[in-house]
């Protein structure tokens, strides 16, 4: 086997692993949203990364009374993280970044401050309401 095909196989494995994390995350968020009675639309986007190539990733649009949340995968290879997914509120455009680090999803604000909350249903529901500025 050539070095090039070894590399290709390595990046293919990384991409598959990343998409597995994304599927789990999106599936959790969709279930938590549905528990709240919020509407969930599933979509796909095309992501291109230098090492992983072009691939399709899942996107969620969640309708919350008073606004909405978009779950938007950005990519695996990020500075200081092993994957990033943005949670973006509409119409406020408030955003937090979910970054994967040491096997866990961590929440980081736009000011780069980590929130240090466990990533779970309760956190997501509160975060979603805060992102759209609900009192």
């Amino acid at each position, binding site marked *: 086997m050539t070095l090039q095909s070894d590399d290709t196989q390595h990046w293919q494995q990384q991409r598959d692993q990343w998409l597995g994390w994304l599927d789990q995350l999106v599936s959790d968020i969709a279930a938590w949203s549905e528990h709240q009675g919020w509407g969930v639309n599933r979509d796909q986007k095309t992501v291109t990364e230098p090492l992983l190539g072009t691939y399709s990733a899942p996107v969620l649009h969640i309708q919350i009374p008073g606004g909405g949340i978009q779950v938007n995968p950005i990519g695996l290879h990020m*500075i200081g993280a092993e994957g990033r997914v943005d949670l973006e509120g*509409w*119409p*406020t*455009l*408030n*955003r937090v970044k979910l970054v994967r680090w040491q096997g866990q999803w961590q929440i980081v604000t*736009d*000011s*780069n401050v980590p929130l240090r909350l466990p990533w779970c249903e309760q956190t997501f529901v509160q975060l979603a309401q805060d992102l759209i*500025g609900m009192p």
Partner: protein
Amino acid sequence: MTRQEAFSALISVRDEFEATKFAVGHVLRLSDRDPSLVGQYVTGLSRSDLQTCQRNLEATYFLRLFAVFEGTLRNYSKFGRKRLKEPPMERLMDSIGRYRHISPQHMHNAHAVRILRNDMIHEHQQELRLTFHDCKSHLATYISWLPPLW
């Protein structure tokens, strides 16, 4: 123009702001460890120039954010409402607000951002009374009252 294009333009400014904030902060941290670093790459640029840049970054990007907002409203006025005049921003915001039935709270918030922008331009105010992200949210919420397409 679409409302989504207006949102995308605000998002671009936000993302550039975050990228620049990171980049300038990173170079400043590196130059803490190696004070000669800055001079190695750009003649005549000092560390204090970078510190000034970092201090003014939020205000600089705030002005760009407001320019995107103003451009969106003027585009809507011209193409969405077929208005030929270009009134001052206060009148333009009020006129669109009445026409689109924008909530008083959202009008108030967007005007607070406009007043801050005027203070920075005309009164040379340096400090942002609202954060960049607060301003972005208030302006985006105002834009959310515009139609999806005009």
